[in-house]
């Protein structure tokens, strides 16, 4: 779609740069992404593979714009002093870096539920991991499709 010839080199570079603004495009072998996601999760858990369950990762399956994607992570827990969520971490597959956020909770939280808005460079998987007070790890994984704005920005 971008013209390869044209009098204005600066404008062409500006358009190309602007396309990257929303996309954060990086080229990486396709097979590496899921391995890196798993590695990032296990670096946080200290080598333990989380059990799928108890965690619910709420996100639209098709997002309007990857710049601001609302998410909610909730964990099934009574949140008592004896049994509660100590931390929640969120990891991604295809952004420039794997970490999204890490939350520290505890019994004073009352409810293990956090919402925010995240950036997604492209369609990919995301994993939320919860660390419980008994040392166990639980997780939920979602698959998201990201569409970008159609009209390339350029000067504004």
């Amino acid at each position, binding site marked *: 779609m971008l013209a390869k010839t044209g009098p204005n080199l600066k404008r062409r570079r500006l358009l190309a740069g602007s396309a990257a603004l929303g996309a954060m495009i990086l080229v990486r072998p396709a097979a590496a992404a899921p391995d890196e996601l798993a590695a990032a999760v296990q670096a946080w858990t200290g080598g333990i593979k989380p059990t799928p369950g108890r965690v619910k990762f709420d996100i639209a399956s098709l997002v309007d714009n990857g710049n601001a994607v609302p998410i909610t992570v909730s964990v099934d827990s009574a949140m008592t002093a004896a049994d509660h969520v100590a931390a929640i971490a969120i990891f991604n597959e295809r952004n420039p870096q794997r970490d999204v956020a890490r939350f520290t909770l505890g019994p004073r939280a009352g409810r293990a539920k956090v919402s925010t808005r995240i950036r997604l460079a492209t369609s990919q998987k995301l994993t939320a991991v919860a660390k419980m007070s008994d040392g166990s790890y639980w997780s939920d994984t979602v698959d998201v499709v990201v569409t970008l704005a159609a009209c390339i920005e350029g000067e*504004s």
Partner: protein
Amino acid sequence: MRIVLFMLCALLSLAAAAQRMSGTAFMGPSTQAMQRDDSLNPAMLWVKEGETAWRRSDEGNGKSCASCHGDAESAMRGVAARYPAFDAQAGRPVNLGQRINQCRVRQQSAAALPAESDALLGLESYVALQSRGMPAAAPDDARLQPFLERGQARWQQRMGQLNLSCAQCHDQRWGQRLGSSIIPQAHATGYPIYRLEWQAMGSLQRRLRNCLSGVRAALYPAGSLELVELELYLAQRDRGMEMEAPAVRP
């Protein structure tokens, strides 16, 4: 000729009226939720700035907006809904941001705020919020007629390397896709908006310039009469639709 044009407009708007849909209808549910809830809408950060600025008296001659207008909630109710409006002194229509700057220069002896600045967008979104929920009410001002006609002509004129007119996408192909995005009807009832693509607040003129950039047309300068005429036509086209400012858009 003007009567024919008016009747054509009326007929077209009647036909389209049943199908007029705000940009909100074309967004995903989570983006809609972001707009609906003031505790989620990032635009409310700019509204808060505008609310503070409304009472500031540390610039120019020391008058704040409140000095003349009092409470914005009552004084500015319905104002944004009838902009762009004709400015007798300038002899041309002005949009809300330009009107705010005129007040600053003429009444407050303060410097005009730069276009797309947080300060100006703050005031604009705070004032526009006071029309939220009201019907868009572009004025029936005979003085606006020649500007309106030029704005409408510009809406229908093919432009840029891609040789597309606004009407071709937004009147004739709304609901279809451009790339992976659904083409909205291009109603401007939500401006100024927090646009996810910008990751910031912006005015209607910023969006129009983006569209022009998208069809590879030369951009009318920010604040130019050509853009205000387009805004004027859009305001007429939106008449009766619910004001949503400050909205969220992808």
